């Protein structure tokens, strides 16, 4: 079960960042653009643009370790979700529709703050790959001394440790 606060945050006007690593423990980074949460099953599905996704997808196929960080660029509020990948598949029409909706939300959110639409419309967000992972841990990632604190996935309250 994933707390509604996290569902709303992940599916809201937030930026999505993906971390992975290869068999030699070398890290890799990619954007994701758009995500959905299945609160009951405790999973998140995010959409990895293929244009820069090959290394990340290879890492998931190798070891399945997912780090998914979601941040609100207007407030800096940020959370990191971690867990194993469960499925990897090509995005379908309904997935790219979710990506379009996500981009529209971001444009509406950031426009009043002075960010030109072209920042977001200039990203190549599909074709993409849908990656679903099981969320096992969630951490505060908002910049500052509290970053790294572990939260309870169901209540979103602090549980201590990292």
């Amino acid at each position, binding site marked *: 079960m994933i707390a509604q606060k996290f569902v709303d945050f992940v599916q809201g006007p937030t930026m999505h*960042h*993906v*971390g*992975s*690593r290869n068999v030699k*423990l*070398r*890290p*890799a*980074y990619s*954007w994701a653009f758009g995500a959905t949460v299945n609160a009951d099953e405790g999973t998140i599905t995010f959409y990895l*643009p293929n*244009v*820069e996704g090959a290394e990340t997808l290879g890492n998931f196929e190798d*070891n399945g*370790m*997912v*780090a*998914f*960080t979601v*941040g609100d660029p207007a407030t*800096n509020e*940020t959370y*990191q979700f*971690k867990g194993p990948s469960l499925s990897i598949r090509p995005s379908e029409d309904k997935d790219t529709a979710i990506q379009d909706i996500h981009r529209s939300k971001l444009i509406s959110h950031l426009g009043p703050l002075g960010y*030109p639409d*072209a*920042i977001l*419309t*200039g*990203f*190549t967000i599909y074709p993409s790959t849908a990656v679903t992972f099981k969320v096992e841990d969630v*951490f505060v*990632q908002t*910049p*500052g*001394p509290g*970053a*790294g604190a572990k939260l309870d996935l169901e209540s979103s309250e602090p549980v201590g440790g*990292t």
Partner: protein
Amino acid sequence: MLPDEIKPAMEGVVPSSIVTCSLAGSPNVTSISQIYYVDENHVALSHQFFNKTHRNIRENPYVFACLRDPATWQEWMLELQYDHSETEGPVFEEMDLKIEAIASMTGMEGVFKLLAADIYKVTSVRKSNSRSALLEP
């Protein structure tokens, strides 16, 4: 190795993203306010807290970084390897000043204190293919 055209992405206007990995194999992705240009083969990352990123780098020195040019939004992908830390000297002093300046611009004065300037060797650099169109600078 680092071209001059990457320097605007190192001014701290747009946060950079970095990924590290623990020895146990858990990746960690977070944002950092600035990646500092030291010379054509080295950059510096600020060490401000004893957080997961700091612990990972002490266990496993490799970092993947994504930087963004604030004028064009061209993204740059860098692979880095930790080399050493500096707690005094010109790189440390410049980073300390810039961190406070960035904090004041984001309403976070007094939150950040520089403990060390961590110096990394750049092992690869390339432009990202993430954009179909760049902004006009």
